[in-house]
């Protein structure tokens, strides 16, 4: 027998995932037109790998294929990874990263909704640790023609020095090691645009645009993007005001690396993130804090992925201690 309620809002997991994919489109357009068109190929490779990997595991687990494949959650993971990886990453590395995310991080923990860690971020961290050099070869925006990009992705000879530059974050980080270098001098020489990497910096507003769409659709709440961007801006502003020669500006931090992608698409992953309103604020702000520390003082140029994983571990603790007040209860919270 079916019990009440007998009516349901026409909402579905597929609808949620489709909205996320839609929200990524502005950034994909900017990426393909301004930076490297091969990202479209990478998106296709990642999507195929994700669906194939998901189908394989479902088969092994004896689960029905159709509901899980059509919920589009694997495609979201695939797209996020393709956008995180360098566009000239060889195809097999993209496939490997996607399989780590789908098979190891998602399905070995029980599939959709069960994974304690963000699959895309675990895969990203695994790849950057396993293939540090491949994972840090980024072309300058519009530097390579499409044929060269394709050649690199599908296994052409890699003349690394000729093609690879570094990300804006990387350039600043390594640049500051030289005696007498300042943020200003580095940004004056290198491949920089208005606030961050030339061309690359336009991804930030594109991601933000998609994020606003998700906010408007009610897919995400304001808590996490606001806390993440606010905390990142605040801490980078503090260091920058204290020593502008050795610490980049808040604007640079917000427009570089995975900040905007993270704020609206990574940190907001519901499965592995905090769920209470106050918990979301704490969770996202702490990610920003850890990410900034790694960016400024750690071994890696970008720290969002590691920060997300660190805070994923803390989610049960955060949720437990930030339970909202229940209707009619004054002050006492669920423990």
């Amino acid at each position: 027998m079916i019990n009440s309620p007998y009516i349901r809002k026409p909402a579905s997991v597929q609808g949620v995932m489709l909205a996320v994919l839609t929200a990524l489109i502005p950034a994909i357009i900017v990426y393909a037109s301004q930076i490297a068109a091969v990202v479209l190929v990478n998106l296709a490779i990642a999507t195929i790998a994700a669906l194939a990997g998901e189908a394989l595991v479902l088969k092994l687990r004896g689960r029905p294929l159709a509901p899980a494949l059509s919920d589009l959650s694997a495609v979201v993971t695939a797209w996020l990874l393709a956008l995180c990886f360098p566009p000239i990453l060889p195809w097999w590395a993209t496939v490997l990263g996607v399989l780590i995310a789908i098979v190891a991080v998602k399905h070995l923990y029980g599939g959709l909704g069960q994974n304690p860690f963000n699959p895309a971020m675990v895969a990203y961290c695994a790849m950057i640790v396993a293939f540090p050099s491949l994972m840090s070869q980024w072309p300058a925006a519009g530097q390579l023609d499409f044929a060269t990009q394709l050649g690199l992705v599908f296994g052409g000879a890699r003349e690394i020095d000729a093609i690879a530059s570094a990300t804006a974050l990387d350039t600043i980080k390594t640049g500051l090691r030289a005696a007498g270098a300042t943020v200003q001098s580095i940004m004056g020489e290198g491949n920089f645009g208005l606030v961050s990497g030339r061309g690359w910096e336009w991804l930030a507003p594109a991601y933000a645009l998609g994020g606003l769409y998700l906010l408007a659709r009610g897919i995400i709440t304001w808590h996490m993007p606001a806390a993440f961007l606010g905390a990142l801006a605040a801490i980078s502003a503090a260091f920058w005001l204290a020593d502008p020669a050795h610490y980049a500006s808040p604007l640079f931090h917000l427009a570089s690396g995975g900040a905007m992608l993270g704020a609206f698409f990574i940190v907001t992953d519901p499965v592995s993130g905090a769920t209470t309103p106050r918990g979301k604020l704490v969770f996202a702000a702490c990610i920003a804090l850890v990410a900034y520390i790694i960016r400024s003082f750690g071994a890696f140029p970008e720290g969002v992925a590691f920060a997300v994983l660190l805070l994923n571990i803390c989610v049960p603790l955060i949720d437990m201690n930030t339970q909202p007040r229940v209707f009619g209860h004054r002050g006492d919270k669920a423990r």
Partner: protein
Amino acid sequence: MITRLFSFKGGVKPESHKNESSGTPIQKAPLPKRLVIPLRQSIRSTARCLVAPGQRVLKGEHIGEGEGGLGTSVHASTSGTVVEIAPSPMAHASGLETLSIVIEPDGEDRWIDHTPLDLHSVSREEALAWLRGCGIVGMGGAGFPTHVKLGGGRGIDTLVINGAECEPWITCDDRLMRERAPEVLSGAMILRELIGAKQVLVGIEDNKPEAIAAMQAAASGLGDDISVVPVPTLYPAGGEKQLIRVLTGVEIPQGKLGTDFGVQCFNVGTANAVHRAIRFGEPLVSRVITLTGNVARPGNYEVLLGTQVSELLDLAGPKADTDRYIVGGPMMGTELQSLSVPVSKGMNCIIAASPALFPPPPPELPCIRCGACARACPADLQPFELYWFSRAKNFGKAQEYHLFDCIECGCCAFVCPSRIPLVDYYRFAKGEIWARERELQASDQARERFEFRNFRQEREKEEKAAKLAAKAAETRAKLAESGEAAAPAAETEDPKKALVAAALARAKQQQAAVTPKNTDGLTADVQAEIANIEARREKLNPQDADKAP
């Protein structure tokens, strides 16, 4: 009077589907062929039957006497003959049966003599007893006796009249307010007087402009302290606690009553029934009910209590593809298990459902912790956490996360993108917890009984020992007094030893007399046999016999 409105968090906006049935005036349903009047009319209480088969009754005649604190009187809904008193199914999710009086109407619908009650000539208690005698219970659904809700009549500041009607499809309160606003407000004023409230707030969702206008017009002559307040249309604004929150800002926690916070709430239908009971002396024998959904003639009908749902549905004409019927609204209603159930005091709506109108839920997917349920929850709970705990049968944790604050309004399941039947999980968890508590209570009682038995046996033993000690002391005193004179021969023996021996012997004798034997109540043959055995044993052990004094 301008009322500042408050809000509750969460809530959902399902399609209202009110227009289907709200357009036509309330029609009087024709006399049914048969009335089945359950003796269980108010919550947790069954009335005592006052009639016998074959007896003729008049409309409004007292046929069941309410029992206990929550009992209310039961009346014949029309004139006719009692043909049977037998168990019959009720409109309840479980399909439970209850003792019911079956009346065959005589077609005359003749009222019993009834007179109004002059509120000013009687005490408050008498007025409450009058309402109890008229069978007035809450008509919003739960069937809680109105005289009990009116309580002590002290410390109530605000009386809330609930005309929100937030469930989709239902329009019976809407039509009632449009057509009988003065009666509803008259009832509200009576309730106000009985409960001693300073102000009356009538809350109506703003998707019912006609009802609001009618009620405001009727209220205009009644003074400043009664106001008809449109509240935003947001399910479940008609939930008692939510409406009280919206109108007064007061949040009533789970397990507490409005009276603890100076607020009490009644449904508009109840107010109308109170008006009829006091101003005309009419017991509650009919109610307005919405027939809607997959029917040819949706609308509102004034129906005699006890009318069979199957007979009633003919008025609306269910369409061919109707596959089930929902009593109440689609958010909190229950599916009818049988159509041969009677209309009860709390039955506000019957929805004919078809696969097209109420499609079966799509397959359930895993929870992705998106939190849509938490944003929709009007009790500010974390429904997905409760779901995980209930699913894992981690009931302690579920209670810690305030499972029992859940009002089962269905908002969480309504918005869930994974279409998880969340409320089912909470019902399951609550049921399990209640079952465990009952079990625990039962085993507690058993343990207490056992412990008391042990304690009693221990106490009896001690009492016996004390008695024996006293007796021994007495004997010793006697011996000490008469010892030298009466028994000079005993001087050679140790007097102390003799004393102990005497006391022991007495004790033994007494114990033999007190201890119940398992040889009582046997047949003569068996007792003779036992006597034989005892005799043989004494022969074999003569020392035993010697020791006896």
